[in-house]
């Protein structure tokens, strides 16, 4: 019979859960890694990874049947190529008080299989902002406490990037940077001159290996990452953390395992284990462990806490502060500008670089002062237009066709990713009126952007137009494709870290104040959102918390 007793249980196998499993097993713990969805085996289950683009019936597009079945996914990322990696919305619905786009991946590896891979450190401008501005609560940690853990996770995950010495975007342990193409090279140089070094364009820092790592090939520049990489060239649970954890011989991975609640010893205020509902057989099993890591993703870890220990705290485990479920954040984006580059018609590139450029934040830093708080960074790229440019152009026939078959003009486009302030009113809670396929009350989400984001958005659009005009781009046009919370797929908060159990759910080591052997280390724990892509910070927080948990176990404090 299989054991139901472990040293540690990790709930969720995405970016955070994979790291928790790796760190805890490597430190000698016997770990049960629970995943609510199916197993996805590395390489073998990347069924579309080597398909020719022409082999898809709808050439990767969407059908009306897909749009009916995926009412949330259809708002942005719905496509035929990697549909199997996105959640079945009919089985797992949620309630939107206001529109909130929640794009989920319920399988081993979670969204580490489809993520955008941009990996940036946060800085003390981010960790100190709440305290300095009197927003929400102070982060209980500073950059120097996280820096060694950024080092640690970057070395294993494989982050390629350039060292720039920017205080707002600290350098890390980088693999060789991918190069700019000739259009970006030109703009980056001109931008530095035009803004006196205050605004910079750097190559994206991305979790694609630019040289081989253990068990992983170097990037082959196919840019088909989100189908799963047969070379293991980008960081995912499958390519990176899962094999490391499995190598210890101390890992048990159980797919199809929905954790319905965390079990609590009321007297000692310690978790004893979890109750698991088998998603296929619907049988229930209880597993015990000394420590529990919740890494089920922002909102999902909180959802689980809300279902746990309700006989002690009606709002669930971690609700004593009144902040569980609150302060939901994301990054607002889909706003920026584009323009054409001249003088490069005799230049081209080869290979599909799975990465773009980054313009680190410059607003409200180094003496700049705007009518809003915080700032934004830009992500974009220069490229020669493809055949699609010609759809909107006038013309049909032989010349039109031959012209459309050749590379078009050089174009540069970028969108900003803006910080969203934490706001108590942005909240998720249980909807007792509505159940999912397994009878669990679904989450009800009520979240909106505010005045700060609205004001920032003007700069997000106009600044890029200004930068393009000042660097000599032609026919510059701005755009705002519209944004609703969740679209960034950078959802954060709802179980924030803090210094005071009265105003936060987690302490400085990601322990639930109300049950210190329960750790929440995914995006739920974030106290503010910064404007950098957050996954690298989840990795670092998870590795740091795992190290602390093992120390505390050894000190017999847990």
């Amino acid at each position: 019979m299989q054991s139901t007793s472990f040293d540690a249980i990790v709930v969720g196998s995405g970016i955070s859960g994979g790291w928790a499993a790796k760190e805890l097993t490597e430190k000698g713990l016997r770990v049960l890694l629970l995943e609510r969805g199916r197993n996805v085996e590395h390489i073998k289950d990347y069924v579309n990874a080597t398909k020719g683009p022409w082999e898809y019936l709808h050439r990767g597009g969407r059908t009306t049947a897909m749009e009916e079945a995926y009412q949330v996914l259809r708002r942005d990322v719905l496509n035929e190529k990697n549909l199997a990696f996105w959640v079945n919305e009919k089985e797992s619905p949620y309630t939107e008080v206001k529109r909130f786009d929640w794009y989920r991946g319920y399988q081993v590896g979670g969204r580490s299989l489809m993520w955008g891979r941009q990996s940036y450190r946060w800085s003390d401008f981010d960790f100190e902002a709440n305290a300095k501005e009197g927003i929400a609560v102070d982060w209980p940690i500073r950059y120097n406490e996280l820096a060694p853990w950024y080092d640690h996770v970057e070395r294993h995950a494989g982050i390629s990037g350039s060292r720039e010495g920017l205080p707002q975007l600290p350098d890390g342990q980088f693999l060789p940077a991918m190069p700019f193409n000739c259009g970006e090279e030109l703009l980056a140089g001109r931008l530095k001159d035009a803004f006196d070094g205050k605004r910079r364009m750097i190559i994206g820092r991305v979790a694609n290996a630019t040289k081989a790592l253990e068990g992983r090939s170097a990037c082959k520049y196919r840019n088909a990452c989100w189908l799963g990489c047969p070379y293991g060239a980008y960081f995912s649970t499958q390519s990176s953390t899962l094999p490391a954890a499995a190598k210890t011989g101390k890992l048990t991975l159980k797919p199809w395992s929905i954790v319905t609640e965390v079990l609590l010893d009321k007297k000692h205020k310690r978790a004893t284990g979890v109750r698991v509902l088998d998603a296929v057989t619907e049988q229930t099993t209880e597993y015990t462990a000394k420590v529990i890591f919740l890494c089920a993703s922002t909102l999902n870890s909180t959802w689980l806490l809300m279902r746990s220990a309700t006989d002690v705290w009606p709002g669930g485990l971690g609700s004593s502060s009144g902040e569980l479920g609150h302060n939901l954040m994301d990054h607002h984006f889909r706003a920026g500008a584009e323009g054409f580059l001249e003088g490069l018609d005799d230049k081209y590139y080869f290979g599909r670089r799975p990465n773009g450029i980054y313009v680190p934040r410059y607003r409200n830093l180094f003496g700049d002062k705007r009518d809003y708080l915080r700032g934004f960074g830009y992500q974009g790229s220069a490229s020669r237009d493809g055949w699609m440019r010609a759809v909107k152009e006038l013309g049909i026939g032989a010349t039109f066709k031959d012209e459309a078959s050749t590379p078009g003009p050089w174009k540069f486009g970028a969108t900003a990713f803006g910080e969203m302030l934490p706001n108590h009113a942005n909240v998720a809670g249980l909807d007792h009126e509505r159940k999912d396929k397994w009878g669990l009350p679904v989450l009800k989400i009520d979240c909106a952007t505010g005045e700060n984001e609205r004001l920032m958005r003007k700069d997000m659009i106009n600044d890029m137009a200004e930068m393009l005009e000042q660097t000599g781009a032609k026919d510059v046009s701005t755009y705002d494709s519209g944004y609703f919370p969740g679209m960034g797929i950078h959802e954060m908060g709802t179980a924030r870290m803090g210094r005071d159990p009265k105003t936060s759910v987690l302490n400085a080591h990601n322990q639930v104040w109300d049950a210190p052997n329960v750790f929440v280390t995914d995006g739920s724990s974030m106290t503010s959102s910064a404007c950098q892509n957050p996954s690298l910070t989840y990795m670092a927080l998870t590795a740091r918390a795992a190290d602390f948990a093992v120390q505390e176990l050894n000190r017999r404090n847990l």
Partner: protein
Amino acid sequence: MTSETGQLRLVSRREAIRRVSALLGGAAFIGGNRLLAAVENASPLVEGSVGEFTAADIAFLDEIAETILPETKTPGAKAAKTGAFMALMVTESYWPAEQRIFREGMRKIDEAMKKAKDVTFMQATPAQRLALLTALDREQVRVMDARDAAERREKGLAPRPAAAPAAKADQNLPDDPNNDLPVVGVRAVGEVPKKPAHYFRMMKELAMLGYFTSEIGYTKVMRYAEVPGRFDPCLPYTPGDPAWADHA
């Protein structure tokens, strides 16, 4: 056709899809059974989305596509089975309101050809087809550009700096013919309603999508490296050389 029972319509639709799948060739054939299942399951959900494109319809769409993308030094749209792809996409990926406009567009093209040259579109010479579709292309660019400009005004964005020069000509073409149509498909709260495009924009878009994303498009019209293995950021380019195809 109106006398057909639901059962007969279903059978004939399945038959139509089977033909389309066969026309699309070997790779798609594997997906054919899956497609049949999907279409059957979808039928109660999407009322009126039954697109019955006959072999004659597909031949008609092939000639539309071939007129837009004729054989030159590279194969034309017909060689890439673009008509069958267009029929499949209209059947599977267009909402009923869009399907109606597309089908209506096919009829309008035939009528316009009869009026102008007293022949059907299929009977017309390639030059006659090109002349008619070129006029329709001017119309759709003007309509769609005007719509884009109106949407930008609504959003408070500045006008695009360079409107397509020819789109400014033909000031006396009709206004957007789709102004009164219902919005397309399902949509989320706060989502901007999508109006169906001008029918010739639909045809041009589907023809180009079908052609350039076909195996011929990827490997004979453009250049395609399945595994580039490296990234060369800045290489000399000689005008006329085909593009490197994207893939993601």
